[in-house]
């Protein structure tokens, strides 16, 4: 493991514990998309720290380029520590499909960590999901879609606050989302959101 990554995991555990709870599946070496509620800047790190070391090697968090890609410490953490996949959030900068880097990562066999709300919410429970998860899921039907609920992190580092306070957080992994044929986008996204909410 890279030293920067080990240091990050240690810091995250000291701050928020990030205790894993494998409720619906185990920490297995299969290709997955972990999708979670998004309430703070520590979310990515918490899921990352909750994964066993072997899985971390092949699991890449998806991060917004406008926040994590601007250089400095944040970029260093995202790129060197977490091996993140950066994507464009702002529509004006788009050229082609913004999900293209994610397709490439999945095609290369990596697992992903994504936050389908697209932005951080103020509440513990997630808001409506954006369509990225649907597109990823339909293009890669063999990849497991694992819902994740992050408890308490909205209290550790609420939106608009730049320094976290220590709180014990559990990271709950649910059962992989069953695939339904012929399901439309809205129904799928609502079902996926429901799977995260069910872990709360």
């Amino acid at each position, binding site marked *: 493991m890279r030293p920067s990554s080990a240091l990050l995991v240690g810091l995250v555990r000291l701050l928020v*514990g990030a205790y894993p709870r494998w409720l619906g599946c185990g920490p297995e070496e299969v290709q997955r998309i972990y999708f979670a509620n998004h309430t703070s800047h520590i979310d990515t790190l918490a899921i990352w720290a909750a994964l066993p070391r072997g899985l971390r090697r092949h699991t890449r968090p998806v991060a917004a380029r406008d926040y994590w890609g601007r250089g400095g410490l944040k970029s260093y953490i995202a790129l060197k520590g977490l091996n993140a996949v950066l994507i464009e959030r702002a529509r004006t900068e788009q050229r082609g499909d913004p999900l293209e880097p994610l397709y490439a990562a999945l095609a290369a066999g990596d697992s992903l960590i994504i936050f389908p709300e697209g932005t951080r919410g103020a509440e513990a429970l997630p808001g409506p999901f954006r369509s990225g998860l649907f597109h990823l899921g339909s293009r890669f039907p063999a990849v497991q879609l694992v819902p994740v609920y992050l408890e308490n992190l909205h209290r550790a580092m609420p939106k608009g*606050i730049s320094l976290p*306070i*220590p*709180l*014990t957080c559990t990271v709950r992994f649910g059962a992989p989302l069953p695939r339904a044929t012929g399901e439309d986008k809205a129904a799928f996204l609502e079902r996926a959101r429901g799977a995260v909410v069910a872990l709360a």
Partner: protein
Amino acid sequence: MTPMAKFQWLMGGIVALLALSSAIGWVLERRATTPAKRDVVANLRARVRSWWVMVAIFAVAFLLGKGATLVLFAFASFFALREFITLTPTRRGDHKPLFLAFFVLIPAQYLLIGWDRYGVFTIFIPVYAFLLLPAFAALDDDPDEFLSRSAKIQWAVMITVYCISHAPALMLLDIPGYEGQNALLVFYLVLVVQLSDVMQYVFGKLFGRRKIAPRVSPSKTVEGFLGGLASAALIGAAMWWITPFTPLQALGMSAIVVLMGFLGGLTLSAVKRSLGAKDWGVMIEGHGGMLDRMDSVSFAAPVFFHLTRYFFAG
């Protein structure tokens, strides 16, 4: 005997005791027949395993000296406060005081002990933190539940930082004829408190019938308390040679430590249940959280510290 020789004898005794406990757990596991009994034995064995780890950490800190012991207790405070705040329904407006508590109050309190500032260390949290924590919260302009939110944070800081810090604070006392041995007194306090917890648990499991306050703490019984009090006080008296006390004084000090520890366990159990939890956390296998282990220390340490200071410090 030099302090180091005393420490080695002490560790020898503790290791022997733990080895015996591990052996008993091993035998009991083979005799447990019903699932309920197996659960009790599994928990017992987990507790003993955690004790080995805790004793090892504590012993290493002792050998590394005063600074390491202070850092160890600072981390104990940190994790205990983290558990307390996790169970407390805090709001966004509590962020500033909580940040202050974790990252300013904890280091400051232990640095004051390290710098031998008795006068500041005893009033820093009860005066300055008491006033400034709610003041910082008020700046965030959220009057909802303000008093109860402030009170919970003040309580959390008093118990987890102020009270617990009195255990390593024993190192700043000047006790005539006991120079250079104060770290042993920290060890003594923690040992008597923890032994009394263990003995109350053992006597309670074996003979416990009359519950003291079943809604607050279902496992505390009159028989467990009396058995724990008698056995821990006697062991405390028998270990007078690592303290500045005579055997009789050690008996009295231990009895007070056990009594305070019992009240601490009971009171913090009530606090924990009023926050809707059974355990403070999951850090220590078999025991629950840091505060499940430190609850009795938090009540015993300040009283032990002040009694030692009044009657034995120069």
